[in-house]
């Protein structure tokens, strides 16, 4: 049985004792994390902190050494359709011979299951999602002709088609223009306002307070997690980044550099 648990106290995502390793290299160590329903959460941490690994291992895309993940109180396997995934834009070959609308339609493949082909209904859904990300006029464009920001919007549209309740995004603002960044934030905030849960790997510490209400600070282990105004402070950032960041939330009015 999939679906959203009625009890609001059950978190959208619960990660318990999660450990992931590549060979003898530990990438994630004993992560305990709860993401409340209807929240917008940033995952931050230095390079190699395991941010992408966390997003992937929540979905079982990477084998776990130990740990349990539940989505709305049930195993990911049962809740796959409740989870929508936006991989890093750079992870695919944008020269692939396909159009924007066909790429977005891939979001409906999971519901269709094996062999069944997308039809009229899926096409309409894809166009609707493209309208939301303001890309409708590009629907018949070949994907190789898109800019970085447009590619990211297409990926977001594909995730919207899945009509899931949990969104996992891997660096959605990587290399996109300012307009796209604003548009994506607006859409994500709308999703959260509609009771959806958003977990997003984020790089730019300057915008954390503006975009997110909650944060998970990661460096192999979980350094801190909670409300941005409670845990997003220099002490926790020092723990995660060491001396590798000059960003201190308390002083951000005077210093904007990361």
């Amino acid at each position, binding site marked *: 049985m999939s679906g959203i648990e009625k009890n609001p106290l059950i978190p959208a995502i619960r990660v318990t004792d999660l450990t992931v390793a590549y060979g003898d290299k530990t990438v994630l160590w004993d992560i305990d994390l709860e993401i409340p329903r209807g929240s917008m959460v940033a995952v931050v941490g230095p390079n190699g902190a395991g941010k992408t690994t966390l997003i*992937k291992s929540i*979905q079982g*895309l990477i084998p776990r050494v130990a740990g349990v993940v539940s989505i709305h109180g049930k195993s990911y396997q049962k809740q*796959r359709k409740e*989870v929508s*995934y936006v*991989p890093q834009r750079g*992870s*695919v*070959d944008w020269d*692939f*011979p*396909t*159009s924007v609308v066909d*790429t977005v339609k*891939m*979001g409906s*493949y*999971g519901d*269709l*299951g*094996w*062999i*069944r*082909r*997308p039809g009229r209904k899926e096409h309409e859904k894809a166009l609707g999602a493209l309208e939301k990300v303001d890309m409708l006029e590009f629907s018949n464009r*070949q994907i*190789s002709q898109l800019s970085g920001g447009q590619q990211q919007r297409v990926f977001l549209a*594909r995730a919207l088609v*899945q009509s899931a309740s949990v969104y996992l995004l891997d660096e959605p603002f990587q290399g996109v223009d300012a307009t796209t960044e604003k548009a994506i934030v607006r859409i994500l905030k709308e999703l959260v306002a509609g009771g959806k849960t958003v977990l997003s790997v984020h790089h730019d510490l300057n915008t954390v307070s503006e975009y997110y209400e909650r944060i998970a600070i990661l460096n192999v282990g979980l350094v801190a997690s909670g409300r941005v105004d409670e845990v997003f402070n220099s002490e926790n950032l020092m723990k995660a980044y060491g001396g590798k960041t000059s960003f201190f939330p308390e002083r951000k009015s005077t210093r904007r550099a990361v």
Partner: protein
Amino acid sequence: MSPHQFDIQLVAIIVAASCSIPGAFLVLRRMSMMADAISHSILLGIILVFFLVRDLSSPLLIIGAAASGILAISLIEAVNRSRLVKKDASIGIVFPFLFSVAVILLSKYARNVHIDTHSVLLGELAFAPFNRFIISGTDIGPKSAYIMGSIFLLNLLFVSFFYKELKVSTFDESFASSIGFRPRLIHYLLMAVVSVTCVGAFDAVGSILVIALIVIPPCCAYLLTDSLSKMIFLSVVFGITAAVSGFWVANLIDVNIAGSMASLCGLFFLAVFLFAPKRGFLAIIREKRRQKMAFAEASLLVSLYNQEMGKTVKNHPDSREMFQSGDLISKVVGFLKRKGEIAVKGEKIFLTEKGREKARITMENQ
């Protein structure tokens, strides 16, 4: 056209069409060299099964061949996963080994059998029609046409049934597995299909030339279309055209048919590579030249406009660089004059009203 010639072409067409279909996905998955690996490795399976059954027409041969194709892929991935060698090197390690073992076995124990090294490498398309399919005394055509026809049907069904799964797992593997498809399974199914295709095609065109039919037609198609389904369709068209024209060229100059087919594949690719309307080499050069010209024109118009406005703006560094070659500037001036955007009086260049308007628009769009 004699019935014999007709039969040869029939077999060649079916072989080419069967190879092009899975070939499109191999090319898109950057696994073209897997075709090389599979087409060579199947020989080991064919020979080992032959030693068991002592019958070259046994269908078990196909199963043995497909199994050794899968074995090659699994070995390549195992070597690759060890992270001790790079992916391309692991291909280069595994298949020559399997192939050379097969060649040794062949030369040592099977000298008198039809499978000699020459026909393994080049195939014997010309002999394909001699092996007839006879049902209760009636000759219903060359056997290889039926075998290859079944393989073609298998490929067609595989790609039509799993089109969506193949597409999404080729484009975005991690997304595909996140929505519940199993890219690993799709990968192995595709590899099994390629193996079976290689086995069938191997008899007709040999192990080296089958690579040409798997890889080159999809590469031609890739440069000509923006849609996956059209790419598959065009691949088949290219494959068939190369097969038929290759046959007639071979006929004309009396050379090996498979060799001629593969050479024509190469020639077709060269033509597409050069002349493809959007992605071809010449189209790209033309486009670059056009952009360079358009930029030079705009720079000249804007700098003239700025001078007119009395601004002592230095030339934009890019435009100065641009105009260092006297050749280009005279070209640009001549071009703009013809378009009526500038006028030349003596040594001096003036903007016309049309040129002024264009400069204004250019600056607004910056």
